[in-house]
């Protein structure tokens, strides 16, 4: 039921790039990405809808391949503030808004 995220953890130096993957066994209507810092609530990053392949800002972007039921989050030139746990949430469309979250990818950025 839950999407599968990989890798489980990533350690980077400032300025390095990272890719986090999210894969579902079910057809998807949309994919949501969230970041959560330790002890805080998850914060929305972006949503990718069916038919919209890629979006985001210059340093944090994401893609959605609906045929493969996969999404990837790209973090380029990482900053210390990027540290946290990243979750993908998948909406299958049968009940809009009902998200199934992956187990998270812990990203640590060192100076």
């Amino acid at each position, binding site marked *: *039921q*839950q999407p599968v995220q990989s890798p489980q953890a990533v350690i980077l130096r400032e300025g390095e790039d990272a890719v986090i993957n999210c894969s579902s066994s079910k057809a998807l*209507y*949309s994919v*949501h990405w969230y970041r959560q810092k330790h002890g*805080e*609530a*998850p*914060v*929305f990053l972006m*949503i990718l*809808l069916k038919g*919209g392949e890629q979006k985001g800002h210059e340093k944090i972007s994401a893609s959605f391949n609906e045929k493969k039921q996969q999404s990837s989050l790209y973090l380029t030139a990482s900053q210390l503030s990027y540290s946290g746990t990243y*979750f993908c*949430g998948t*909406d299958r*469309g049968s*009940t*809009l*808004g*009902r*998200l*199934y*979250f*992956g*187990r*998270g990818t812990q990203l640590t950025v060192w100076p």
Partner: protein
Amino acid sequence: DAGITQSPRYKITETGRQVTLMCHQTWSHSYMFWYRQDLGHGLRLIYYSAAADITDKGEVPDGYVVSRSKTENFPLTLESATRSQTSVYFCASSENPGAEEDTQYFGPGTRLTVL
């Protein structure tokens, strides 16, 4: 305060007691959600509500009860708390599920410990 709030922020209770976690949002969002977060499991949906008086089960509803008599409030009750319900509980709200601007806004969470 504007936004989504949860109370209490921390709660310790004993097995068998009834506990109610409160969630309040000021945006008049139609949709509200309750999640629990446990190490290694990510966020799992307990219950959700599409509008006042409309609620439905999520992935892990057993042992929980919800109500939504007013749009802005969505309380979660543990009828008889068990140790396995020790967790961090997040409430969230959303205005336009399925739309390009769809966002779930999360409350700060309630850390519940059942002894």
